[in-house]
């Protein structure tokens, strides 16, 4: 009798623990169902729309996100560099390459919860395309560092994990058909402060 009760308890514990835990894990993973990966960048083009998958729907309900609409823009998040190493705030990076067609885009450095990091200085950890210096072939190179750099400089300081959020506004790539042949800039790691 006791043995049967224990077995039932085991069954229920596995069901509830694994079932609930797997949902929690799936909702916290940065990549997930419905994600589109281009190099180190991840986007969820369907998030916040009625035809989003159940995982995206649960994610917006839990996080209280009001996702950007298709006519507004599309946000890409990078959590690792082009070589697959996690981004760190104490390291310098170079974001270089071609940016897809958009009216303008913004790039900011974010913490775990994707809020912009507080630099403690007047300069925010954010850049946008209207203030960008470009190469003659229309590509651009952005230095991410805690020390000032010539050209385009994105200030990032402090320690801990780092995310880059690159958002394109009023862009044709927000329609999923346009996403197939999009190239995004690469992220190359530089020196790190010990």
């Amino acid at each position, binding site marked *: 009798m006791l043995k049967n009760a224990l077995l039932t308890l*085991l069954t229920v514990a*596995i*069901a509830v623990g694994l079932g609930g835990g797997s*949902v929690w894990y799936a909702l916290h993973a940065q990549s997930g169902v419905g994600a589109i990966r281009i190099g180190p960048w991840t986007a969820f083009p369907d998030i*916040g729309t009625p035809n989003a998958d159940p*995982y995206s729907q649960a994610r917006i309900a839990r996080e209280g996100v009001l*996702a950007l609409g298709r006519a507004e823009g599309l946000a890409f998040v990078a959590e690792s560099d082009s070589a697959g190493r996690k981004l760190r705030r104490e390291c310098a990076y170079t974001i270089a390459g071609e940016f897809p067609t958009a009216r303008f885009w913004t790039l900011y450095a974010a913490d775990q919860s*994707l809020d912009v990091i507080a630099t403690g200085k007047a300069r925010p*950890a954010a850049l946008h395309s209207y203030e960008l210096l470009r190469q003659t072939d229309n590509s651009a190179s952005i230095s991410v560092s805690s020390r000032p750099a010539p050209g385009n400089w994105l200030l990032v300081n402090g320690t801990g994990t780092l995310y880059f959020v690159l958002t394109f506004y009023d862009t044709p790539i927000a329609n999923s058909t346009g996403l197939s042949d999009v190239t995004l800039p690469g992220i190359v790691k530089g020196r790190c402060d010990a």
Partner: protein
Amino acid sequence: MRKVIYAVLLGLFGAGIVHIAVLLLVPDFSERDAWSRLAMASDLYRMTRFDAEAGGPPVVKSVDPLFFAATCRFDLNDGMVQVTAPGQVPFWSVSIYARNGHNIYSFNDRSATGGKLDTVVLTPAQMIEVRKQLPEDYAGSIFVESPIGEGIVVVRAFVPDASWKPTVDRFLNGATCDPETLED
């Protein structure tokens, strides 16, 4: 021993069911969704800023740091809702969300007459009434027809640098969100 393996297998099977059930129930039972958070912060038809500049922790998950944003909740059962904002800013966009946070419709300043923000959200039934006799107030409005009851409208505006902050502040603080009823 066989009983234990049987119990574990049954547990794994149950875990699958629980996974699906929890996943599908999360949107309905979440008390942390955008609507609930906004309801705690302000009333229906009250334009509320929710960017970092507005002071206090952001009500809804923060937007782009180079953007300011304002939002208001509405209920189409009370009538249509008209959203306007004065002045010109480098870029603005409007999104209409259903109560569950789904983006129903979005547009930006390129869609508007002369770049002026003036939009009316209404149900298809209300649209029929409006078509019969277009009120003069709505001559330049963008109509968003959506079969939702309660909803959220969000206005986002781009702030290229600090010198634009006063202009964008004026734009968003002057934004209105008014319920409208057609008189018979």
